[in-house]
């Protein structure tokens, strides 16, 4: 119990105003002491949640349709050709079974990147919600964590939807695939943390187009989502193996196909965590530079 409530509760300074101290809301109902920076992130998260209530229907529809489209076009359409051409399967399984766990994390990446570009820039420049938070007791760490947790929530919902639909398609069969869900969320966080740092330095959305065209799209195509990276020339294969998405795809696929062993799994998780940590640290620096001036 702190003393601040009674220190303020004397009420003498507030008199009998229209909105101040008129007795309807007692002063001691107003929290005066604030926890240290970084422990108030739930308040920022609460804003993003309120904001999400306006648009959640659209996002749910798109997270149902996207896997439907992908699994139908790639799995059923293209997959039939692939399976006819190589009866032994891709890495020993039907193409759709090879593909689904890859798309799961690639989709997590795309959702996370999108949620970390325009919304971050908007909260800095357009609607300026970050500024409103920082004028209240929240600090930079609260603002960043609250928003990242929201992005993680979005990725969780869309990845869980994807997983359910993939199971319905028969594209995923193993119970181990349930562990691919936290992998997808971790993947989302790795990308979100880095893109937050990037978005905080942008003056306009030109940079986002470059990001989507020259980083996200190539990663989506060449990080083992659609075909094993061993198909690539050695130099490109090396590049692919450095991307966080390749590690996510390997992990997710290894779980879904029950081919993953403990040590490589830990290695992939550690690598993704490294990206989360580095991105988060850089985001704190960039947000501070941009917002605390």
């Amino acid at each position: 119990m702190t003393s601040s409530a009674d220190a303020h509760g004397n009420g003498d300074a507030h008199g009998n105003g229209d909105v101040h101290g008129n007795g309807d809301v007692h002063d001691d109902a107003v929290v005066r002491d604030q926890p240290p920076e970084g422990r108030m992130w739930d308040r920022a998260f609460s804003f993003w949640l309120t904001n999400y209530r306006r648009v959640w229907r659209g996002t749910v529809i798109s997270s149902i349709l996207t896997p439907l489209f992908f699994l139908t076009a790639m799995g059923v359409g293209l997959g039939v050709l692939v399976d006819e051409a190589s009866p032994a399967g891709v890495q020993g399984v039907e193409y759709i079974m090879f593909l689904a766990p890859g798309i799961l994390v690639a989709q997590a990446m795309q959702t996370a990147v999108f949620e970390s570009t325009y919304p971050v820039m908007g909260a800095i420049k357009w609607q300026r919600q970050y500024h409103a938070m920082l004028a209240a007791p929240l600090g930079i760490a609260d603002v960043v964590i609250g928003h990242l947790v929201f992005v993680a929530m979005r990725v969780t919902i869309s990845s869980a939807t994807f997983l359910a639909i993939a199971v319905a398609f028969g594209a995923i069969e193993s119970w181990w695939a349930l562990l691919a869900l936290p992998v997808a969320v971790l993947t989302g966080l790795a990308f979100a943390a880095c893109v937050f740092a990037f978005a905080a330095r942008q003056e306009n959305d030109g940079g986002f187009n470059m990001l989507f065209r020259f980083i996200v799209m190539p990663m989506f195509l060449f990080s083992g989502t659609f075909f094993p990276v061993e198909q690539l020339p050695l130099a490109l294969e090396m590049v692919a193996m450095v991307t966080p998405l390749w590690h996510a795809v390997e992990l997710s696929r290894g779980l879904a196909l029950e081919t993953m062993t403990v040590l490589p799994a830990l290695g992939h998780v550690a690598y993704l965590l490294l990206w989360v940590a580095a991105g988060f640290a850089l985001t704190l620096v960039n947000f501070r530079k941009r917002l605390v001036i």
Partner: protein
Amino acid sequence: MVLRQDGTQADDRPLISAHALTKRFGDFTAVDGIDVEVRRGEAFGFLGPNGAGKSSTMRMIGCVSPPTGGTLRILGLDPATDGPRIRGRLGVVPQKDTLDEELTVRENILVYGRYFGLSRAVVRERADELLEFAQLTERASSIVEPLSGGMKRRLTIARALVNNPEVLLLDEPTTGLDPQARHVLWDRLFRLKRSGVTLVLTTHYMDEAEQLCDRLVVMDGGKIVAEGSPRQLIAEYSTREVLELRFGEDDHGAYEPKVADLASRVEVLPDRLLLYVSDGDAASKTVHDRGLAPLSMLVRRSTLEDVFLHLTGRTLID
């Protein structure tokens, strides 16, 4: 003096005190070593042209911009170490609205209340009172985006009051509003002041400063160039009255020597002469007696605007 248990001190200490407060952005010095004290319950104004350093000062007081130098204490606390605690007791109306335009009027208050750690039940109750106060009850469930500038401004003020702040910081609260909207806003601010909230505001409107401020400082180029109540400032930096003379010619400068001895100061403008005098009627009679025949003569009270222009010059600052 009562020392409170949480380290802050009771009412006889200034609520805000700044000494040699400085803010630099690279080589540019926005605020250049100002000393300011704001007491509990007063309405205090920072008056100055664009670029004078008002907003930078306000952002430092709001604990969102760390000072480059000097000392700053707000509610007896140091922003460098107690930022969140101080901000929890301030209300901030920034120059640029930070409303969420896609949310409703009420949602904006609810969300903002949560930033202060208020429970949902408390914020809901508070929101009703504040909407009433801001005359927005009927628009409670409207989306913010299409509202008028005056309504958005009132919402920003209502939102800033959600935590029952001891100090309300207002950065150019009525810039860009039409006269009706400004008067409604002033009326709300008067009520707040009467209920004991300390107001700290910046403005470049003289009428606003005269209407609202008990005490103000005039800033120019990052420094404080004058300080006092509006009345004191007029007494100190201007004369009681101003006599305006218009002649039907392009060069009003030619008339200056003929009237210079009548006034403590004469200002030559393209379309008129301003004579700063204690007795405007007496001066106008002398002008007449000297056979000068201006097209028009106007005697008026000195205003804060005369003080302001005298102190900060008439040159346009961009």
